[in-house]
């Protein structure tokens, strides 16, 4: 299971609150501002980075996260409407895949459990 300081969540407050409810507030380090999150990523290695798809320029944001955290498991949370865009980041069309996986929001209990796992990659939701 994910432990304290292993997961960085870059999302708006409501999503972060939901993460805290399911995973515990000590398990995650949450940021609303991408630039503040970058500063935290520069400081240390994270096992998992979760990005909400609500940010403008999602592709660039994911590439920046991948550049700063090459070893991290980078996941995106998105609504059904943005699945094709996010899938292209995961599939890596014409380029290396930028993210490892994505989840359609809201998450099911099984997906929350998968998200909390650090050793195994999360189950993709297609």
């Amino acid at each position, binding site marked *: 299971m994910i432990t304290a300081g292993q997961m960085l969540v870059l999302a708006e407050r409501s999503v972060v609150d939901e993460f805290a409810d399911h995973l515990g507030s000590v398990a995650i380090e949450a940021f609303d501002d*991408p630039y503040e999150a*970058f500063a935290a990523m520069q400081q240390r290695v994270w096992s998992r980075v979760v990005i909400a798809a609500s940010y403008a320029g999602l592709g660039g944001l994911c590439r*920046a996260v991948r550049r700063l955290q090459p070893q991290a498991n980078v996941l995106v949370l998105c609504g059904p409407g943005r699945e094709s865009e996010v899938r292209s980041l995961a599939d890596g069309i014409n380029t290396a895949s930028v993210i490892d996986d994505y989840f359609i929001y809201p998450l099911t209990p099984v997906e929350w459990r998968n998200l909390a796992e650090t050793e195994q990659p999360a189950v993709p939701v297609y």
Partner: protein
Amino acid sequence: MGEDTKLSGGSKIIILSKDASFARAACGKQSSYNCLRVTSSYEAAAEMLIEHSLAIVIDLRCLTSGDLPLVEMARQRDLEILAVGSAPLGVSNCDLSGVRLSSRESLAGLLTTLAACRDQTIEEAQPPCEPVAVSEPVSATGQWVKRLPLSEPRDVELPASQNEPEPEPEIAEPAHHVRNVQEGYRPSALLTSEEIEALLEDGV
């Protein structure tokens, strides 16, 4: 991530533009610096954090008010910030304080100058590799004199005025200067409280 326009050369210059020809124009034919083009401000910020860069060039067509933290970050890291174009909607001139506006044509020359200045600074900071040759001592009249070995006693008698160290002339410094030295530079320390009160009474 971004694309390397040049792979050899000196420090990295981040170019934020969605236009590949813009980056090519910025890099010119010089090889004294590396250009890395990125298409989003997030990537530019990541590049800035990963490795020290010489400068960032921003194509103002792709800057929005949401990207202003990038400009602030560059300022904090003492990067040279160059921008081409006009300030987009939602971005004021004040937001671009410290940003050097340039034309697309003059960008390559400006970057070359920056890289040259960087190289010069590095050279000046490094100690000389070989000892500097010391010339023979010259007398006060400009004639060459024989250099004596260090072990030999030197019988040269100097005039009395040169034997004794001269007392340093006492220069009375103005009182406000002394206060500046002691307290650091503080405008409020330039005047005494009595002087400030006198000025306030005069309605200044």
